[in-house]
Each structure stands twice: as C-alpha cells, then as structure tokens.
C-alpha cells in the first residue's frame, strides 16, 4: 500500500491551523489491524515507539544485572555468584546497556519519532528500511537474550571482546557465537538507521527549513547518522573476522597463525570511540531542546553548538587508541593530543547550555531538572575523561575502578538525559503529560544515586581496585567504599521503579497535554499530540529556527541570530 503525500500550508486550511480538523480525515487507513498492524507498520512513529519501549526494557534488564554485580561486591569475600557467573554478568551488563539500550534508544527511538516531525517531513525517507532496521534490532535483542540459556552460559569475555579471550579455545560454546550474531544484527540495524537519518534530513525538510534552522536535536542526529556510517561498518567487519577465526580456521586475531590480537582492539575502538559520541550526541541534542524551553530563552550560541557537534564528531575519528595506551604499541602523543582537543568543543557545549540558562526565567519541571542533572553528571564524566587522555595518568588508572567510574558518570548522564527526553516529548507521543511529582522524585533518586554510585569508584580506582574482580579478600578496607557504591546503585534502581509507577499513575489518571504543553519552539509542537498519520496537515511559515514559537508569538519573533534570518522578517531585523 502506498500513500502519495501532499503538502499544505496553513492558509489553505483555516486560519489557525489544521489542529481543529480531524487528523484522520485526510489519510484514513483501512489497513490491517491488531498484531498484523504492528508487524506491517512502516510509520516512523510506531517504529520509534517500538524502539523506545524495547530499549527501556533492555535498560531494566541490564540494570538488574548491574544490581547483582553490586550485590556481589558488598563484601570482600562474597559468594553470591561464582567467578564464571561474575564474568558473564559484567559482559552481559555492558553488552546489553551499550548495544541494546543506549545506542538504539538514542539514535533510533526518540530520533525516529522526532526527526521527521522536527524537519516537517511525513515519514522517514525509507520507511520500509526503517521497519527492517527495527526487526533486525529486535532479532538482535532476542539473540542476545537467548545466550543466557546457552549451554556454558552467555559470553564472558567483557563487552569489548578482546582477542584472544574470544578465540574458539578460550570461549567455547554457542554463547559467544550468539553474542557475535546479536551484534551483527544490531550493527546492520544501526547502519540502516544512520542511512535513514541522513537521507531524511537531507531530502525531506519542509520549505524554508534550511540546515541552519534545524533544531539542535536534528543537527545532532544528522551528525550521529554520519558517524554511524563511518564507524559501524568497521565493527561489523571485525565481527565477521572474529567469526571466521572461531569457525573457519583463519588466524586474523590469533598469534598462532601469524595474526595480530591487537588488531581487534584497533578495529573495535575505531568503532568504539565514535560510538561514545554516537551515544552521547543524541542526548546532547535532547537537553539542547529542553533547556531553552524552560529557560524561556532562545538557544545561546546556536551556530557554536552546531560547529561544536561537527568538531566532536570529526575529532572522534582520531582518538580510538586512547583506550589502548597501556598496550605499548600505539602512538601516545598523537592520541593524547586528539583526545584532549575534544574537550574544547565539549566545553563550548557546556558553556552554551549554561549561557542559555543564564538570566532566563527557569521553570524547574522534571524535564528541566533531568537536563541540569545531565549537564552536571556529564561534566564530571568529561573532566575525569580529560585526566585519562593523559598517558601518564592513564598508565596509573587503566583498568581500575577510576575508569569504570569515569564511563559510568558519562553513561549515567546519558540515562538522565534520556529521562529528560521522555518527560519532555512524552506528551507529544501519548497526548498526556507524565506526573511531575513522581518525575521529581525519580530525578532526585537517579541524580543523587548516580553520584553516590560513581564517586566511591574514583577513590577505589586510585587505591588500586581493578575492574572486573568478583572478590577482594586481600583489601578488606575497600569494603566501605564498595558498600556506598552499592547504595547508589540501589537508589538508581528505585528511581527506575518510580518511572514505572509514573507510567502507571499517568495512565490511570491522564493529564491531557494539548498540542504544545511547554510553549516550545520546534516544528514537532505545531502538529497535534499524538501527530496524525504522516504527521502534518499543515505547516507554518518557517522563518527562524523556532517556527512554532514565531507562529504562536508573533509579538516576539525569534530574530537576532544573524544572517540565517531573512525573508519577510527582514524589516523587523533592522530595528
């Protein structure tokens, strides 16, 4: 079935938009219903919700594994799990969180839902490819979960899968093969999402939506899409090579046949470091949308933000081996300089977020609290990252809990940013607001829990506690800090319960949101909540990066951002 999509401006309808008209008048569908409807949908909104829900389920699964890990570490000689089970736990925790939650939530969940809305498009550029990418992701999820039931258990070589731990001798059984298979499936799913994002943003923007009028979130998704296309093929290729090593007798990563185990690390991190930004940029974009709305100010330094995003992405291509400083086989000054340089554009971003809040009329809604929490937590993770970019400091802390705490500050910042996105765009997706009280309770537990969870890790790392140890009988003095870390992890777990309670409460006592509950500025707030099939019955004129704001507040045009403002607004610029 195919729909020919026509585009209308608001004058062709009635004066105040197509909001009042029945969203389903125009494109009524008599397609399949029930399960078949879900299986056959190519609507980016349905796919986006599928992605979001699936990835949040994986967040809960990965979080449960983390709670078991923290429970094991409460005492120096705990016997809650065996050493082998502990290896499986941290491997699956990392794999599920990175491959199945953070990435898909960031670049395929909310992005799938929002990017077409923000650029004024009826759908993603390739709707069937988009659907395929979700089915591949779901297959990857099922494959990864299947490995829990494999003989010999799931993969146990860490989420980075370093050679030679992954060889057929060191990691026998189907668990590691299922891990490889799951990553192949999600890898292709990510590549297809990247293609779709870039094509949608290049080809389906509404008239007047020039590149430099796109919302920061859409900009970040464009750059994320390009990074996916540069990075993911390398991981997928490396996985194919690993599979060949395990089953077809090649020796690409095995010393015995003349291979190079370090090659795996090069290939893995050539994907893995851009991946960090593939994960982070979407959340940078989310808080960049939330902070201006609740500060009642336009984004401070819009162009600076865009160029900072582009610079971060470009630099991320040249920093992979800072994960390999202690291998003794990489060019230390080169990777140190490149890694330290990334602090500059990231600093610009944090400066711009603070500049946006500066002297604004800040409303402390849940979404805003989560955004501020994101900035603070990401700052902590970023600054400790600058320490680690220096080889002498990295030699001292490599593979200790300092590194673990560093990247958990970063990724927990992303989880906090994800919550900002859920509270901010939830009303657009469902038509109903989430409960603010539960939201704030969730924020305080999540934000404080994150700090209580990570800070002891920095100390433990400096004291010398190595990552991935299940017991520490020779250092009983580490117990207090480990116990605090576990308290933090429990607080984070409670915050997740609050989110689920909030979903239930908001579902039982719905608070209708209306089309634009936050008086926000992006094009997604112009259409109804939830948007009709193919998104827009009409479009406003787009004369700045805040089209919906301009339409609802003609007395306060969002001007003054320099040369990207023109057209009929020019006469107002002059004064």
């Amino acid at each position, binding site marked *: 079935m*195919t729909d020919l999509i026509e585009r209308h401006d608001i004058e062709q309808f009635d004066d105040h938009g197509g909001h009042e008209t029945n969203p389903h008048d125009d494109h009524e569908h008599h397609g399949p219903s029930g399960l078949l409807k879900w299986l056959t949908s190519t609507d980016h909104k349905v796919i986006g919700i599928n992605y979001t829900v699936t990835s949040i389920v994986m967040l809960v699964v990965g979080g449960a594994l983390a709670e078991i890990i923290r429970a094991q570490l409460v005492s120096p000689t705990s016997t809650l799990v065996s050493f082998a089970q502990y290896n499986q736990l941290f491997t699956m925790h990392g794999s599920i969180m990175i491959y199945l939650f953070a990435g898909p939530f960031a670049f395929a969940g909310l992005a799938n839902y929002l990017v077409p809305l923000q650029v004024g498009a009826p759908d993603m550029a390739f709707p069937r490819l988009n*659907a395929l990418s*979700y*089915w591949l992701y779901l297959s990857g999820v099922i494959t990864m979960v299947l490995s829990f039931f494999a003989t010999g258990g799931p993969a146990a070589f860490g989420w980075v899968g370093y050679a030679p731990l992954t060889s057929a001798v060191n990691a026998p059984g189907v668990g590691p093969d299922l891990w490889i298979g799951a990553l192949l499936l999600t890898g292709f799913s990510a590549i297809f999402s990247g293609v779709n994002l870039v094509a949608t943003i290049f080809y*389906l923007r509404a*008239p007047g939506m020039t590149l430099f009028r796109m919302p920061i979130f859409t900009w970040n998704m464009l750059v994320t899409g390009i990074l996916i296309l540069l990075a993911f093929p390398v991981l997928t290729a490396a996985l194919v090579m690993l599979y060949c090593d395990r089953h077809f007798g090649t020796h690409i990563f095995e010393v015995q046949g003349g291979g190079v185990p370090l090659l795996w690390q090069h290939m893995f991190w050539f994907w893995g470091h851009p991946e960090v930004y593939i994960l982070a940029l979407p959340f940078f974009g989310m808080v960049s949308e939330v902070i201006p709305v609740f500060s009642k100010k336009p984004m401070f330094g819009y162009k600076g933000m865009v160029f900072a995003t582009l610079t971060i992405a*470009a630099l991320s291509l040249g920093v992979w081996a800072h994960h390999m400083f202690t291998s003794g086989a990489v060019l230390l000054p080169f990777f140190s300089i490149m890694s330290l340089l990334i602090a500059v554009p990231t600093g610009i971003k944090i400066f711009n977020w603070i500049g946006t809040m500066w002297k604004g009329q800040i409303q402390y809604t849940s979404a805003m609290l989560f955004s501020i929490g994101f900035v603070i937590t990401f700052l902590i993770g970023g600054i400790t990252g600058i320490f680690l970019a220096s080889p002498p400091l990295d030699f001292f802390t490599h593979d200790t809990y300092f590194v673990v705490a560093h990247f958990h500050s970063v990724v927990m910042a992303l989880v906090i940013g994800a919550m900002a996105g859920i509270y901010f765009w939830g009303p657009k997706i469902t038509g109903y607001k989430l409960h603010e009280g539960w939201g704030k309770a969730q924020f305080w537990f999540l934000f404080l829990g994150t700090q209580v969870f990570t800070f002891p890790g920095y100390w433990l790392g400096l004291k010398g506690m190595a990552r991935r140890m299940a017991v520490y009988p020779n250092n009983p003095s580490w117990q207090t800090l480990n116990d605090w870390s576990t308290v933090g992890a429990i607080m984070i777990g409670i915050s997740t319960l609050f989110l689920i309670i909030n979903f239930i409460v908001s579902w039982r006592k719905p608070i209708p949101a209306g089309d634009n509950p936050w008086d926000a500025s992006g094009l997604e707030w112009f259409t109804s909540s939830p948007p009709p099939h193919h998104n827009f019955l009409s479009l406003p004129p787009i004369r700045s990066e805040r089209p919906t704001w301009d339409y609802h507040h003609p007395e306060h045009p969002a001007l003054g951002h320099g040369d990207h403002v023109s057209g009929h607004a020019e006469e107002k610029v002059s004064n």
Partner: protein
Amino acid sequence: MLKQESYILIAFGIFAGIVAAVYWFWGHEDSGGVMLVGALLLGLMPGLYYYYWYRRSGGQRPEDRPNATVAEGAGTVDAFPSTSIWPFVLGSGCFFFVLALVFGIWLLVPGLSLVLAAFIGATAESRRGGSV
C-alpha cells in the same frame, strides 16, 4: 540544492584524510591508517556525489531558501508505503541466517527462503504501488 549537505560530508572526508596522513607518517601503523583512509572515502564518495547533483541541478530547493513559502513546496512530497509485511519477513530471514551461523547450516533453509520471499514480495509491492 544539497550544497551545504555535500560540504559537510566532504569536510568529514578531508578531515579524515588529514588525520590519516599525519597518523600514517608519524605512527607507521597500518590498521588505523587503512581505517582512516576508509573514513576518507566514506566521506568523499557521498559528498562528491551530492556535489555533482548540486552542480548539475543548479537551482535551490524550497528547503534550501530561507524565504521560501510553504506554498512553494506544495504538491506531492513523495510516495510513502503505509504498511508492508516484507521488512518483517526480511528481518526474520536475517534472524534465521544468524541462527544458522550458531546452531547449524540447516537453518539457512528457512533463512534464505524468507530473504528470497522478501526480495520478491517487496519488489512486486513497489511495482504495484508506483514510485515508492
């Protein structure tokens, strides 16, 4: 059309090229150099293709002009498939394909059948539906 878009991709490619050159002559390490040259090509190939289309078409699309009215963009945006079962069939085929890598070659039978069915089905669907 597509001028700034092509510049972004070309800039990524050129930057990867500069990094590749510096890395290659300073570090003498092959794998990173090869991957950076790959990044150079992945930036330049689509970037130059878009640049070619920009040079060839010349004019600006309504979405490239800051003062375009919505009416200028009126008309058919494109044809979008509203429902299709074939992505699910193709995804299931890929799932069986991966299971075949793990559990045994016989799983390629359902895997490849589903992939083949999806190729035929999706192509036929596109023909029926017009310019998808």
